[in-house]
C-alpha cells in the first residue's frame, strides 16, 4: 500500500484484503468492508471460549490427564460408539435423505421437520424419549423381550443415543448434496437401462461420495459430543457407557476441572481434525 504511484487523474480504491496475493485470479466477492467487523466478532465469540479453555489448562498435567485409565476407557468407548453411530446414521440416514430429496409426497415437510427434531430437542428429553421407547418398560419392550434384548444402559444404548441426535446432521447435509447434484445423471443412467439399484450403486453414490463423506463425519462428530441423551438413556459406567463427554462432566463436577478441560480439548482437537480433513478431501474430490 506504500508504493502506489498515481499515474492517472482519479483516485482508486484499495481493497482491505489487498496485501495477500494468491495465484489463481481473485473472483468478485463484493462484500461491504464493514461486514468484516460483525463477522470478526462472531468468529471471536465462537473461537475465544475455546482459546480461553486452552489458556486455562494446566498443560503440565495434560499427559497424565489423557493417559489415566478412566480417560483412555472413555476415549476408546467414545471412538467405538461414535463409529457405530455413524454407521447406523449412514445405513438409515442415507435412504431417508434420498427419499426426502427425490420423492415428492404429501406431508413431506412434516416428516422432514420430525426427522430434524433431535437437532433442536434438548438431548435430555431425547434420552427420556428413548427410554420410553427402548427401555425396560418402553413401548417396544414387549417386542424386545421376545428376542431377549435389553439394551438400556448398555453400550448399545450409547450408540442409539448418539445415532438419535446425530441422524439429522447426516440427513440434512446429504439431502442438500443430493439436491445440488441433481437427478440428471440418474435419468441418463435409467434411460441407458440401469435398474434403480444399479443407478444408486454406480451413479448416485459415487457422485455424492464427497458430500456423503462429510455428512458422515458431521454425524460422527456430533455423536462424539453427545452427552444428555447418553446420560439419561445409557447411564455412566466406565468402559461401558461413560463416553468422553460424560467423563468430562464427571471430572468437572467431581473436583478436577483441569482434567475436564484437558479432555475437552482432546475432543475439540478430534472434531477439528476430522472435519478439516474431510472438508479438504471432499473439496479436492469435487475438483
Amino acid at each position, binding site marked *: 500500500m506504500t508504493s502506489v504511484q498515481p499515474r492517472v487523474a482519479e483516485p482508486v480504491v484499495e481493497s482491505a484484503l489487498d496485501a495477500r496475493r494468491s495465484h489463481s485470479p481473485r473472483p468478485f466477492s463484493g462484500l461491504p468492508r464493514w461486514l468484516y467487523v460483525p463477522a470478526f466478532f462472531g468468529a471471536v465469540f465462537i473461537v475465544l471460549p475455546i482459546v480461553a479453555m486452552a489458556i486455562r489448562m494446566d498443560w503440565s498435567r495434560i499427559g497424565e490427564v489423557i493417559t489415566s485409565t478412566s480417560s483412555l476407557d472413555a476415549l476408546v468407548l467414545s471412538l467405538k460408539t461414535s463409529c457405530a453411530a455413524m454407521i447406523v446414521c449412514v445405513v438409515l440416514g442415507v435412504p431417508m435423505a434420498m427419499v426426502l430429496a427425490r420423492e415428492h409426497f404429501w406431508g413431506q415437510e412434516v416428516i422432514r421437520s420430525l426427522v430434524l427434531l433431535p437437532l433442536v430437542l434438548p438431548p435430555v428429553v431425547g434420552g427420556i424419549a428413548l427410554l420410553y421407547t427402548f427401555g425396560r418398560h418402553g413401548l417396544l419392550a414387549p417386542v424386545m423381550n421376545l428376542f431377549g434384548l435389553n439394551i438400556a444402559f448398555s453400550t448399545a444404548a450409547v450408540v442409539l443415543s448418539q445415532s438419535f441426535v446425530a441422524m439429522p446432521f447426516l440427513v440434512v447435509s446429504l439431502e442438500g448434496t443430493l439436491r445440488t447434484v441433481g437427478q*440428471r*445423471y440418474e*435419468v*441418463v*443412467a*435409467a*434411460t*441407458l*437401462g*440401469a*435398474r*434403480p439399484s*444399479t*443407478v444408486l450403486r*454406480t*451413479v448416485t453414490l*459415487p*457422485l455424492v461420495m464427497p458430500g456423503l463423506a462429510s455428512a458422515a463425519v458431521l454425524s460422527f462428530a456430533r455423536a462424539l459430543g453427545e452427552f444428555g441423551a447418553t446420560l439419561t438413556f445409557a447411564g455412566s459406567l466406565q468402559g461401558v457407557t461413560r463416553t468422553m463427554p460424560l467423563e468430562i462432566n464427571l471430572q468437572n463436577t467431581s473436583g478436577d476441572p483441569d482434567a475436564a478441560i484437558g479432555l475437552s480439548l482432546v475432543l475439540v482437537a478430534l472434531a477439528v481434525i476430522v472435519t478439516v480433513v474431510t472438508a479438504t478431501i471432499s473439496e479436492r474430490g469435487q475438483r
Partner: protein
Amino acid sequence: MSLSVHAVVAQRHFEAALDMDEGERVAVLGHNGAGKSTLLSILAGTLRPDSGRAVLNDELLFDLDAGRRRWRPPHERGIALLAQDALLFPHLSVRDNVAFGPRVGGASSRQAAQRAQRWLDEVGVAEFADRRPHELSGGQAQRVALARALAAEPKLLLLDEPMAALDVSVAPILRRVLRRVLENRSAIIVTHDLLDAVLLAQRIIVLQDGRVAESGPTEQVLQHPKTRFTARIAGLNLVRGSYRSGCVVHSADLWIEGNHQAAAELVESAPAAAVFSPSAVTIAVEDVHSSARNRIAVTIAELEPTGQMVRVRADDHHGHHLSADVTMRSVAELDLYPGRTVIYSVKAASVSIYPV
C-alpha cells in the same frame, strides 16, 4: 406401427399424440416452451403424464387412460435420451461411460469394453477412450454421449437439441456422425434447426403450446406449412432423385447440381435429395448462361407478398412446388404473374445434396 403415444400433462398444457414407424426418424420443431422436451420426457419415462397411453413395438410403455395405471419404468423401455448437455458420468472414463449400457444390460466386462470400443470407433472418438469426461471438448463429449446412447442398443433414440450447446465449427461433424448412425434407426430429434430436420428426419412434427400444430413427411410440411411458425422456418425447396456425380437427377430434364460436405456418403445412383432456399433462387424470363448451374423451367402458380418480398410459388411439372423470394420491383420489371413460365436458376453453391 412401431410407436404410438398420446399423453396429457395438464400442468404444462401438454396434450399431444404421435405415431411413428419402425426405423423412422421424426424431427420435432417448436418454440421455446412448446413442449418438445416434455414429449421426450414422457417417452423416456422420466415424466409421468396425467393420462395417456404409449406402445413401442407392441410393448406397452404406459397406459394411464380411464383410471388405468400401468407404467413401465425408464430402464425397462429401451429408450435412450441424448440431451443438449452430454452428461457423461464424471467419475467414469470415456470407455466406461460407453460401456455403461452394455454392462447394466448384463454383458461381461470384456464384452462391454468391446462394444464400447466399437461405438467409440463408430463416432470417431476412440482415441479419447482413456480420458475423463472433463478432459473432452464439448463436441467430443457430445459424440461420446452419442456412442454411449447407441451402445445401450435402444429401440428408440431420443435426441433433445443434441447440437444446441456446440460451437458452430463442431456441430457439422456431429451432424455427419448422426446422419450415419441414425440410418435405419427409430429416432426422435428435437431441433431448432430446419437443416437438421431435413437432413436427419423423414417426418416433421411441429409443436405449439403443447399441441401438435402440424405433422407429416418433411417435404410436405415444408412445402405446405399450415401454421405461421412452420411457414417462417420452412420454405425450403426439396427435390428428390438419384445421385449422379454431384447432381440429384430426378428425370432427364430435371437434375440439380449441388454441394455436399462428405462426398463419401453419396453413392452413385443411390437415392438423394437436393435442398435449397427460396432466397437462393433467381428468376429469369429467358435462359442465360451463368455460373448458376441449375436452371429449372417452372410455371408460376401463386405470388404471395411476405413483407418487403414476394414469395413466388411455382410448379416444375415434375411434381415439385418450388418457391423463390424476389423483390416487388422484380415482380414488376419481369412481369411475373401466375401462369407464366419462367426459369428458376440456383447456384450449385446454394444447394445441399444428401443421401436419403
